[in-house]
Protein backbone atom coordinates (compact mmCIF):
# COMPACT_ATOMS: atom_id res chain seq x y z
CA UNK A 1 0.00 0.00 0.00
CA UNK A 2 1.08 3.54 -0.69
CA UNK A 3 2.02 5.36 2.43
CA UNK A 4 2.20 9.12 2.82
CA UNK A 5 3.47 10.15 6.22
CA UNK A 6 3.22 13.60 7.72
CA UNK A 7 5.60 14.26 10.58
CA UNK A 8 3.07 15.65 13.05
CA UNK A 9 -0.67 15.23 13.63
CA UNK A 10 -0.95 18.34 15.80
CA UNK A 11 1.24 21.43 16.10
CA UNK A 12 0.93 24.61 18.11
CA UNK A 13 3.20 27.49 17.10
CA UNK A 14 3.52 31.14 18.00
CA UNK A 15 2.94 34.04 15.65
CA UNK A 16 6.13 34.92 13.80
CA UNK A 17 7.75 31.50 14.17
CA UNK A 18 9.19 29.68 11.18
CA UNK A 19 7.31 26.40 10.81
CA UNK A 20 8.30 23.28 8.90
CA UNK A 21 5.78 20.62 7.91
CA UNK A 22 7.34 17.44 6.58
CA UNK A 23 5.88 14.82 4.28
CA UNK A 24 7.38 11.54 3.07
CA UNK A 25 5.99 9.07 0.53
CA UNK A 26 7.24 5.56 -0.11
CA UNK A 27 6.00 4.79 -3.64
CA UNK A 28 8.46 6.70 -5.82
CA UNK A 29 5.74 9.08 -7.02
CA UNK A 30 6.81 11.99 -9.19
CA UNK A 31 4.17 14.40 -7.95
CA UNK A 32 3.68 15.74 -4.45
CA UNK A 33 1.20 18.30 -3.17
CA UNK A 34 0.42 20.47 -0.18
CA UNK A 35 -3.19 21.47 0.45
CA UNK A 36 -4.86 23.29 3.27
CA UNK A 37 -8.36 22.36 4.34
CA UNK A 38 -10.74 24.82 5.98
CA UNK A 39 -14.44 24.37 6.80
CA UNK A 40 -16.64 25.42 3.89
CA UNK A 41 -13.67 26.00 1.58
CA UNK A 42 -12.68 22.43 0.79
CA UNK A 43 -9.08 21.70 -0.17
CA UNK A 44 -7.03 24.48 -1.63
CA UNK A 45 -3.71 23.82 -3.31
CA UNK A 46 -0.74 25.68 -1.85
CA UNK A 47 2.16 24.26 -3.86
CA UNK A 48 2.95 21.18 -5.85
CA UNK A 49 6.09 19.54 -7.18
CA UNK A 50 6.41 17.30 -10.23
CA UNK A 51 10.07 16.41 -9.79
CA UNK A 52 12.99 16.87 -7.44
CA UNK A 53 13.82 20.56 -7.01
CA UNK A 54 10.84 21.49 -9.21
CA UNK A 55 7.86 23.33 -7.77
CA UNK A 56 4.88 25.31 -8.91
CA UNK A 57 2.54 27.63 -7.08
CA UNK A 58 -0.96 26.49 -6.44
CA UNK A 59 -3.96 28.66 -5.73
CA UNK A 60 -2.88 30.13 -2.39
CA UNK A 61 0.95 30.23 -2.17
CA UNK A 62 1.26 33.51 -0.29
CA UNK A 63 3.06 33.12 3.03
CA UNK A 64 4.36 29.65 2.17
CA UNK A 65 7.38 28.12 0.49
CA UNK A 66 8.34 24.51 -0.25
CA UNK A 67 11.39 22.37 -0.63
CA UNK A 68 11.91 19.09 -2.47
CA UNK A 69 15.54 17.99 -2.27
CA UNK A 70 14.74 14.28 -2.50
CA UNK A 71 12.01 12.55 -4.46
CA UNK A 72 10.32 11.05 -1.42
CA UNK A 73 10.22 14.19 0.74
CA UNK A 74 8.25 17.42 0.30
CA UNK A 75 8.43 20.12 2.95
CA UNK A 76 6.07 23.03 3.49
CA UNK A 77 7.56 26.10 5.18
CA UNK A 78 5.67 28.92 6.84
CA UNK A 79 8.24 31.68 6.85
CA UNK A 80 6.55 33.70 9.60
CA UNK A 81 3.46 32.00 10.96
CA UNK A 82 0.31 34.05 11.34
CA UNK A 83 -3.03 33.26 12.98
CA UNK A 84 -4.76 33.07 9.58
CA UNK A 85 -2.57 30.08 8.78
CA UNK A 86 -4.28 28.05 11.48
CA UNK A 87 -5.66 25.14 9.46
CA UNK A 88 -5.49 21.47 8.56
CA UNK A 89 -2.60 20.79 6.18
CA UNK A 90 -2.73 17.76 3.90
CA UNK A 91 0.13 16.29 1.90
CA UNK A 92 -0.46 14.02 -1.09
CA UNK A 93 1.51 12.20 -3.77
CA UNK A 94 0.63 10.72 -7.16
CA UNK A 95 1.89 9.32 -10.38
CA UNK A 96 1.18 11.64 -13.32
CA UNK A 97 -2.51 11.68 -14.21
CA UNK A 98 -3.49 9.14 -11.55
CA UNK A 99 -5.20 9.44 -8.20
CA UNK A 100 -3.50 11.14 -5.29
CA UNK A 101 -2.78 9.43 -1.98
CA UNK A 102 -3.07 11.51 1.15
CA UNK A 103 -1.39 11.65 4.51
CA UNK A 104 -3.36 11.87 7.76
CA UNK A 105 -3.00 15.62 7.96
CA UNK A 106 -1.37 18.09 10.34
CA UNK A 107 -3.64 20.33 12.36
CA UNK A 108 -1.66 23.53 12.89
CA UNK A 109 -2.72 26.14 15.41
CA UNK A 110 -0.93 29.48 15.42
CA UNK A 111 -1.38 31.46 18.62
Amino acid at each position, binding site marked *: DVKVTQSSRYLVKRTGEKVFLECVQDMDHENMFWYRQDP*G*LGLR*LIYFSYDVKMKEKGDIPEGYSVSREKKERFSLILESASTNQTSMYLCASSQQ*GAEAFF*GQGTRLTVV
Partner: protein
Amino acid sequence: AQSVTQLDSQVPVFEEAPVELRCNYSSSVSVYLFWYVQYPNQGLQLLLKYLSGSTLVESINGFEAEFNKSQTSFHLRKPSVHISDTAEYFCAVNRGSNYKLTFGKGTLLTVNP
Protein backbone atom coordinates in the same frame (compact mmCIF):
# COMPACT_ATOMS: atom_id res chain seq x y z
CA ALA B 1 -8.58 26.57 -15.94
CA GLN B 2 -10.44 23.70 -14.38
CA SER B 3 -12.92 23.97 -11.53
CA VAL B 4 -15.24 21.71 -9.57
CA THR B 5 -18.64 22.58 -8.13
CA GLN B 6 -20.31 20.46 -5.50
CA LEU B 7 -23.84 21.73 -5.43
CA ASP B 8 -24.76 20.71 -1.89
CA SER B 9 -22.66 21.52 1.14
CA GLN B 10 -24.73 19.26 3.41
CA VAL B 11 -26.98 16.28 2.67
CA PRO B 12 -28.90 14.73 5.58
CA VAL B 13 -30.62 11.40 4.91
CA PHE B 14 -32.13 8.53 6.84
CA GLU B 15 -30.53 5.14 6.99
CA GLU B 16 -31.38 2.83 4.05
CA ALA B 17 -32.51 5.77 1.90
CA PRO B 18 -30.91 6.44 -1.51
CA VAL B 19 -28.55 9.37 -1.87
CA GLU B 20 -27.01 11.40 -4.69
CA LEU B 21 -24.13 13.82 -4.18
CA ARG B 22 -23.77 16.15 -7.11
CA CYS B 23 -20.56 17.24 -8.82
CA ASN B 24 -20.06 19.37 -11.90
CA TYR B 25 -16.74 20.33 -13.42
CA SER B 26 -15.52 22.77 -16.01
CA SER B 27 -12.73 21.95 -18.38
CA SER B 28 -12.22 22.37 -22.09
CA VAL B 29 -10.24 19.16 -22.43
CA SER B 30 -10.60 15.57 -21.37
CA VAL B 31 -10.37 14.95 -17.66
CA TYR B 32 -9.88 12.35 -15.01
CA LEU B 33 -12.46 12.44 -12.21
CA PHE B 34 -12.33 11.26 -8.63
CA TRP B 35 -14.44 10.99 -5.51
CA TYR B 36 -12.68 11.01 -2.15
CA VAL B 37 -14.16 10.37 1.29
CA GLN B 38 -12.98 11.80 4.60
CA TYR B 39 -14.16 10.24 7.85
CA PRO B 40 -13.91 12.34 11.01
CA ASN B 41 -10.32 13.05 12.08
CA GLN B 42 -8.86 11.15 9.16
CA GLY B 43 -7.17 11.93 5.87
CA LEU B 44 -8.78 11.59 2.46
CA GLN B 45 -9.32 8.16 0.93
CA LEU B 46 -10.04 7.46 -2.71
CA LEU B 47 -13.59 6.19 -3.17
CA LEU B 48 -13.66 5.76 -6.93
CA LYS B 49 -12.20 7.17 -10.13
CA TYR B 50 -12.94 7.64 -13.80
CA LEU B 51 -9.93 7.64 -16.11
CA SER B 52 -11.35 6.20 -19.35
CA GLY B 53 -13.60 3.44 -20.63
CA SER B 54 -16.98 2.71 -19.06
CA THR B 55 -18.67 5.86 -17.86
CA LEU B 56 -20.15 4.07 -14.84
CA VAL B 57 -17.65 3.33 -12.09
CA GLU B 58 -18.27 1.53 -8.81
CA SER B 59 -16.63 1.31 -5.43
CA ILE B 60 -16.38 -1.75 -3.20
CA ASN B 61 -18.81 -0.35 -0.63
CA GLY B 62 -21.79 0.19 -2.92
CA PHE B 63 -21.21 3.71 -4.23
CA GLU B 64 -21.23 4.41 -7.94
CA ALA B 65 -20.64 7.45 -10.12
CA GLU B 66 -21.43 8.15 -13.74
CA PHE B 67 -19.32 10.35 -15.98
CA ASN B 68 -21.58 12.46 -18.19
CA LYS B 69 -19.48 14.40 -20.67
CA SER B 70 -22.35 16.38 -22.20
CA GLN B 71 -23.48 17.61 -18.78
CA THR B 72 -19.91 17.79 -17.39
CA SER B 73 -21.06 15.92 -14.31
CA PHE B 74 -19.82 13.10 -12.13
CA HIS B 75 -22.56 12.54 -9.54
CA LEU B 76 -22.08 10.01 -6.75
CA ARG B 77 -24.93 7.69 -5.84
CA LYS B 78 -25.75 4.92 -3.41
CA PRO B 79 -29.11 3.10 -3.42
CA SER B 80 -29.16 2.46 0.35
CA VAL B 81 -26.92 4.27 2.84
CA HIS B 82 -25.66 3.14 6.24
CA ILE B 83 -24.85 5.20 9.29
CA SER B 84 -21.19 4.35 8.68
CA ASP B 85 -21.35 6.31 5.40
CA THR B 86 -21.50 9.53 7.41
CA ALA B 87 -18.48 11.49 6.18
CA GLU B 88 -17.43 14.37 3.98
CA TYR B 89 -17.18 13.60 0.28
CA PHE B 90 -14.99 15.50 -2.16
CA CYS B 91 -15.12 15.50 -5.93
CA ALA B 92 -11.86 16.21 -7.77
CA VAL B 93 -10.71 16.69 -11.36
CA ASN B 94 -7.35 16.25 -13.00
CA ARG B 95 -6.88 17.45 -16.53
CA GLY B 96 -5.26 14.37 -18.00
CA SER B 97 -1.53 14.90 -18.05
CA ASN B 98 -1.82 17.97 -15.87
CA TYR B 99 -0.40 17.38 -12.43
CA LYS B 100 -2.83 19.58 -10.61
CA LEU B 101 -5.75 17.95 -8.81
CA THR B 102 -8.55 20.43 -8.17
CA PHE B 103 -11.13 19.75 -5.48
CA GLY B 104 -14.67 20.86 -4.84
CA LYS B 105 -15.65 22.32 -1.48
CA GLY B 106 -17.04 19.05 -0.22
CA THR B 107 -20.44 17.64 0.75
CA LEU B 108 -21.11 16.53 4.29
CA LEU B 109 -23.29 13.43 4.19
CA THR B 110 -25.05 12.73 7.49
CA VAL B 111 -26.94 9.47 7.78
CA ASN B 112 -29.48 9.44 10.60
CA PRO B 113 -31.09 6.37 12.18
